[in-house]
């Protein structure tokens, strides 16, 4: 298993969250979050809905603004500086629950857009990169179609390839399989597992416990805006310590 293969304590941190707090109006959505992510580490975040797990990863690329504490990504502290934010977003890829492909562009254009405009990659080179990534997610034949013509699973694989086109150092997954029909979950998870095995740093909000067992170095359980418990997957599933974790695991594993 990836977790045991190397000693993570000697590896550099790529994401650091220090006492991060966030409110939506009066609602305290994140409370004193502390998190250190090492290079190459794969983290799975789970928890009941409304526990703040999506908000947490959306703070990392500043889709949400935190109000207190520090978030440091690749040595850059997130602030309102637009240049900093854009620099971090170039390094951090994100995959959304609802795919968010651009429906007016072909699959290929979806993939090459950011490399061409943000990284100023020549068009031809960007298209080569895009095609190799489409090959990797096993749908090169769909390159000239529009997102609306693809199935959910295919769209999500395109979304992963689109994020990878920017050659990110970190990938954030926000419930990538929650909007999929059951028979399509596996094709997306397979792509994600492959990516994990190649050493990508990943933070993944998901309830796919099989995925967590297969690739995660650490599973984090969040509830009511706090990190309640975190552990290696084997330990996490076998011996949950907190009552809330036990209750949650009891509920979701019951369905699997």
């Amino acid at each position, binding site marked *: 298993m990836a977790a045991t293969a190397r000693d993570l304590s000697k590896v550099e941190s790529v994401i650091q969250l220090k006492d991060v707090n966030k409110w939506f109006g009066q609602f305290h959505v994140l409370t004193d979050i502390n998190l250190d992510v090492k290079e190459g580490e794969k983290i799975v975040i789970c928890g009941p809905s409304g526990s703040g797990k999506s908000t947490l990863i959306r703070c990392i690329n500043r*889709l949400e603004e935190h109000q207190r504490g520090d978030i440091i990504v690749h040595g850059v502290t997130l602030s309102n500086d637009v240049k900093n934010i*854009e*620099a971090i*977003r170039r390094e951090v890829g994100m995959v959304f629950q*609802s795919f968010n492909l651009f*429906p*007016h562009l072909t699959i290929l254009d979806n993939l090459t857009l950011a490399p061409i*405009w943000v990284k*100023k990659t020549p068009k031809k080179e960007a298209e080569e990169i895009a095609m190799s990534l489409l090959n990797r997610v096993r749908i090169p034949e769909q390159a000239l179609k529009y997102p609306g*013509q693809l199935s959910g699973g295919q769209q999500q694989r395109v979304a992963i390839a689109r994020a990878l086109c920017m050659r990110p150092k970190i990938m954030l997954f926000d419930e990538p399989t929650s909007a999929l029909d059951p028979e399509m979950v596996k094709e997306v998870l397979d792509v994600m597992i492959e990516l994990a095995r190649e050493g990508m740093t990943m933070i993944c909000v998901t309830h796919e416990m099989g995925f967590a067992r297969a690739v995660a170095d650490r599973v984090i359980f969040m509830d009511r805006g706090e990190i309640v418990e975190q552990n290696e997957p084997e330990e996490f599933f076998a011996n949950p310590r907190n009552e809330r974790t036990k209750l949650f695991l009891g509920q979701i594993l019951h369905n699997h």
Partner: protein
Amino acid sequence: MTDIMPVGERQPIAPPVDETGPLGWARKNLFSSWGNGITTIVLIGAVGWILAWFLDWALFTANFTASTGAECRGSGACWALIREKYRYIFFGSFPYEQHWRPLFAVIAMLAMLVMSADRRMWNWRLLVIWGVGSFVTFLLMFGQIHIPLSLILFVAVVGGAIGLTLRSALAAANERAAYYALIGIGIVGLALRIAGVLPKWSIAIAPLSYVETSLWGGLPVTLILATYGLAFAFPYGILLALGRRSNLPLIKGLCVGFIELIRGVPLISLLIMASVMLPLFLPSGTTIDKFLRAQVAVILFAGAYIAEVIRGGLQSLPKGQFEAADAMGLNYLQKTLLIILPQALRVVIPPLINTFIGFFKDTSLVLIIGIFDFLNTANQALVDPNWAGFPGEVYLFAAFVYFIFCFSMSRYSKYLEVELNKGTRR
């Protein structure tokens, strides 16, 4: 296991047939009951009777050749009036022997519009088409064009700035240097011009006799007001709509204020303000052409309406589209131009063309401030005492010309919807 028929071996079953040819269709839709049948017959009879009466009036008993209104009396439609007056209706008070000029101006504008309707032209070609088309149109209408030095310098600055913003991502180093050079030359030149170092100099292109705007009239006036009104109001409306959704309170406030203010007053009052009140505020000695003032009023008015239509499109986009663009590291300009506007504008094609059609007709309100647009020249054609008493013919003719333009726009809207949604339909 129960036996399940393998997929693919089942015989396909055709859907039930309930419409057999035109007769079946008519039976189902027109004569499905006694009540329906009677309604159909009565309506067909009524339409036929009205049509017969109209054709009799408009064609069979119509007078095409009379030389005065008196000769027309007693017969059907007096189309002789149109035959007598059509040149005034189309071109107004433009010098009679020069009527070929507004005619070719109209042709140039129509060619420009038809060419820019083609989606394949939506790139740098559009600039060329509009540049050449506008130049030809106004050269024909004015007869002489003076391009002042300051305008050339101003265009250099604006052109350089646009090039720099739009092509910042793709331009090579020497192309970018050229934009900087343009801006630099423009700014230095303008400064020298204002300081009086450079003389008041202009390029004169004067192949024809000068005809001032107060003599313009008829179809070219309507077309110019509508074409340039909407061509400027469209980008302006986009900016207003984006501004209204801005996070910056000052910009948002200005845009909301402007939109609400303009939408809250009738176009007529805006036109009268532009024609009567604006000159009072200008320093004495400076005049702005009345036609130009009306044109600006139309642009401001149309811009506010277009902004609200486009805002509807912006709001219809799911939040995920904005987030996906943000997460990729696109900046605001890239996100807006590449992701948001292409989708938002597609959604609002029908209401947008609806607004365009409305404005095409609303340009006729400029008759209030004494500009002779097409409807106004048609109206003036009735004043001739020799031809008194045939308003129906003239207005019907004017309505027919308006209808051709508006119906074309409506059809174009339909084409555009289909064309732009190719492949993207689910």
